[in-house]
């Protein structure tokens, strides 16, 4: 009940005041230096495992357990959820780090939780019934309306304004850089959209051409995995920079690869796997996908079955034995299991298997390193043009910009400021480049990385530096599997996920695309196989799905 004046007095005054502020130099500069911390995975633990740096010791105890899940990331937790859903509770989950979530881990400032890595999940396509079942079980999918459409918790959805991009010192709504677009470019963009619509169909085998998980896509266009996305666009004669930027951005965002590095199948998959519904909600939380992980942990009520800060040191795939070591005190245990789900990154597996036991050639899978940093600022950043959005993307520079962790916060929140999460994939072209980028990332100290993050934010928000109160920096040496040409349907991936004795590799990377959905289905599939191995007959949630 309001008669509102459209002149927006307060905003006008705010803009005028901001103008005055600019003219007189910046007011209210934070005086204390920001608190900078390194969070996320501890590279030393991984390297100690790689270098077999754990001193040998005696086994303190031997336990018999039905299923061992190694890795409490999205895949491992999905597997745990599936086992619990089947009423099977004879399992343990091992996690090398002190916190769960893997690349979907989250941290928290007193102001707000923040993601350390993966931070959103598009509401699933209706054919992903198992994923919908998870979301329903977690209370994020509330139910369905009369038409059968899922009804998601409003606070779990990204609300407007969703996206803006920064070009020529101004912000514009949405992601497509349409400002100043010529007729030819507009036509090319329309042609690209038409092209996608034409590909939003089922293939000769009755399956959708692109779907999740990717392994279930129709066979019809799988040859597109042999060419790069750039080559594919060249073939279509689509060359304008706007369109190229948009698709390149999408590939870097989802895969940490440029269009030169991404396979055309993966590039198309980004746009088509969830259908072309533009109104599909995006599910997120201040802590990103860590909220999903934490919700699963709460739902499954892991209790003592979750062992964090514990490394799987040796795996005997034939005897079904895992030797674990607790990082804190070096205590060793032997777990004898009927099934071992390897939900940790696949490249670690050969380091714990007996030599020569891994059929996958070393270096067959490649990963993009990422730098992710959450930044608490004491003023909400503004900028000319479109208002602060959930996702804020610069057209130039190596970073993908930042996501506002505090975007969807409670209206009752009165604290000023915001928490921004900055994302930068290190998209080197080849193995040497990636290794060099990884070394550089891990060698840099916190202050150097903080300076790099500030330098990434500064062009979008001149003067943001002094407003920064805290910064939590996560270095991901191996954040994302790279879907370069030939990976998705090639031999390496088939070997990567092939069981080895009782060990089932099922982390996200074995699916070829670094997506939550892939992790979920990989974990789910492995858990169902484990249930079969322990003699629990259970109708498959995956086979239920159509197509």
């Amino acid at each position: 009940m309001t008669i509102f004046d459209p002149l927006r007095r307060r905003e006008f005054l705010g803009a005028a005041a901001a103008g005055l502020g600019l003219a007189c130099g910046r007011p209210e500069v934070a005086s204390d230096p920001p608190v900078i911390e390194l969070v996320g995975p501890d590279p030393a633990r991984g390297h100690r495992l790689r270098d077999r740096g754990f001193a040998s010791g005696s086994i303190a105890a031997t336990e018999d357990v039905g299923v061992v899940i190694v890795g409490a990331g999205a895949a491992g937790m999905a597997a745990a959820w599936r086992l619990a859903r089947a009423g099977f509770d004879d399992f343990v989950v091992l996690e090398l780090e002190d916190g769960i979530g893997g690349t979907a881990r989250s941290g928290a400032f007193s102001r707000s939780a923040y993601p350390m890595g993966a931070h959103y999940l598009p509401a699933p396509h209706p054919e992903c019934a198992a994923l919908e079942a998870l979301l329903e079980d977690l209370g994020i999918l509330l139910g369905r309306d009369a038409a059968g459409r899922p009804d998601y918790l409003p606070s779990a959805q990204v609300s407007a304004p969703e996206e803006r991009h920064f070009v020529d010192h101004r912000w514009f709504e949405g992601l497509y850089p349409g400002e100043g677009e010529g007729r030819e470019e507009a036509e090319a963009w329309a042609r690209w959209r038409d092209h996608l619509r034409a590909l939003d169909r089922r293939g000769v085998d009755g399956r959708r051409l692109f779907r999740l998980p990717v392994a279930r896509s129709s066979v019809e266009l799988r040859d597109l995995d042999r060419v790069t996305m750039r080559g594919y666009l060249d073939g279509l004669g689509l060359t304008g920079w706007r369109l190229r930027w948009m698709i390149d951005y999408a590939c870097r965002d989802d895969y940490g690869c440029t269009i030169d590095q991404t396979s055309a199948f993966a590039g198309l998959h980004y746009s088509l796997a969830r259908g072309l519904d533009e109104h599909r909600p995006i599910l997120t939380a201040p802590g990103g996908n860590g909220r999903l992980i934490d919700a699963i942990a709460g739902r499954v009520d892991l209790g003592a079955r979750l062992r964090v800060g514990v490394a799987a040191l040796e795996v005997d795939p034939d005897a079904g034995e895992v030797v674990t070591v607790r990082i804190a005190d070096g205590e060793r245990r032997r777990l004898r299991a009927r099934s071992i789900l390897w939900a940790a990154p696949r490249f670690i597996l050969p380091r714990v298997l007996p030599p020569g036991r891994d059929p996958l050639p070393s270096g067959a899978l490649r990963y993009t390193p990422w730098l992710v940093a959450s930044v608490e600022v004491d003023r909400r950043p503004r900028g000319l043009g479109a208002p602060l959005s959930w996702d804020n993307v610069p057209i130039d520079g190596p970073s993908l910009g930042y996501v506002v962790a505090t975007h969807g916060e409670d209206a009752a929140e009165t604290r000023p400021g915001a928490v921004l999460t900055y994302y930068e994939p290190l998209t080197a072209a080849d193995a040497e480049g990636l290794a060099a980028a990884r070394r550089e990332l891990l060698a840099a100290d916190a202050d150097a990385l903080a300076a790099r993050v500030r330098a990434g934010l500064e062009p979008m928000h001149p003067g943001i530096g002094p407003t920064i109160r805290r910064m939590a920096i996560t270095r991901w040496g191996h954040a994302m599997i790279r879907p370069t040409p030939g990976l998705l349907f090639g031999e390496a991936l088939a070997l990567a996920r092939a069981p080895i004795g009782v060990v089932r590799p099922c982390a996200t990377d074995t699916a070829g695309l670094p997506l939550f959905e892939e992790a979920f289905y990989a974990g789910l599939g492995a858990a169902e196989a484990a249930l079969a191995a322990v003699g629990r007959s259970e109708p498959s949630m995956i086979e239920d799905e159509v197509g």
Partner: protein
Amino acid sequence: MPPPVPRPPSPGGARLLLGSVLIVATCGLIYELLSATMASYLLGDSITQFSLVIGVYLSAMGLGSYLSKGVKRDLYDRFIAVQLVVAVVGGLSAIALFFGYAWLSSVRPLLFGILIVVGTMVGLEIPLLIRILKDSGELGDLVARVLAFDYLGALAASVLFPLALLPTLGLSRTGLLFGGLNALVATACAFAFRDQLRRPRALQSTSLAIAAALGLGLALGGRLERIAEEELFDAPLVRSEKSAYQRLSITREGDDVRLYIDGNLQFSSLDEHRYHEALVHPALSEAEAPARVLVLGGGDGLALREILKHPSVEAIDLVDLDPKMTGLFTDDPLLRELNEGSLADPRVTIHNADAMRWLEAHVRGGGAAYDAVLVDLPDPNNFSLGKLYSGPFYRLVGRALRPGGSGVIQATSPLLSPRAFWCVVTTLADAGLHPRPYHAHVPTFGDWGFVMIAHEDRPPPTTLAPVALRYLDEATLAALFVFPRDQRPAEVEPNRLSDQLLVHYYEEDLRSIEQGRRRAR
């Protein structure tokens, strides 16, 4: 450069100085009147504000006069500098207070700060002038003339301010005008007495720059003025509270008590019964002896007053973000009289929370569904409010409403913002809540829109529960659901959380009305 030798002014210079006494005195009183007027506009209770402003200002002048004894050298320089300080602080005082009102938690320190600076400077002026002029005539004669000019200026100010300046220029520009005059006096003196000045160049250029800046402000001030002064109300302010979320202002003129939130009218006591009867009774009558009712928004307790007329009601949950709002309407005697103490009724539970979060927690926590749900939130003029008009929010509302129950949504004006109104209707339809739009004439608002909701497809209601009503009867009720030819549904998309088209519709509708008004002018 050696200090200039102090000399008495020439006869022409003396006339200039005496003339400036007139202007200085006028300006001084104008700033005082401006501050007092601003204070009573912004803080209410004009007698207190005027008394305080006059007292503080006069005592600051006294302080200035006392401090003038310490000024022994460079009298001309000091006089001009004092003029310039008064020009800047006094000239910008009204604008500063408007900004301060919008942005500071309390505007009083700013107000009294301005008063003390301007008062002290004005208090310095006359003694300084007398000391400059003291060698150009007999002292008694001089004091008589200076004081005569001083009081003459005060008379000019007190007549001009209410009769000419306030009606034509408004507050901000009056301030700028007199700041400019102060600066011109300073400029004239800086040139006329350049031989007497220690730093003539600096004072001349500073004076000119300040005069020019204030003149420019005066020329451009129209727009700023209009926006700033929308904070002002047509009627005397009796209460003003600033919460963490909004500014609540209560005005009263005779029987007409009004609530403004951030300067936007929320109700007038003269006709709010029309709004609240239309909001509450169609849905509550249809819900058939409702026992449990949920109200989202409505912290003024006026909808509650109407709900409590239904004897079947046992429990009401009221969710309003702002504890200041519900507190004000619980404790203030005037407002409590309006809502008949509804917020303190034992059947009412107040929850100060984000309506979306509260409803989510209620639904996820398996809270019982309500017999009636009333959504009475501010118009969707920003994305935070737009969320509370979105499909996902309405689906939650639907989950909180039992089958067979009845609900209502305030949905802005179908006349002022037709696309916004029909967007609410479309969104409710998309959320499966079988919307039945209706509208009522509320004179202070114009044509106002509501939407009844239910899980079932139902015809418009035709009966009212037997409760005491001033506006609605059954014939009127039937008419509310009729939309004439020129108010047929607009073609609009539903309001999704991800794009919130409603916020755009609302802004565009109001903008086009504003443009129409400007053209009509």
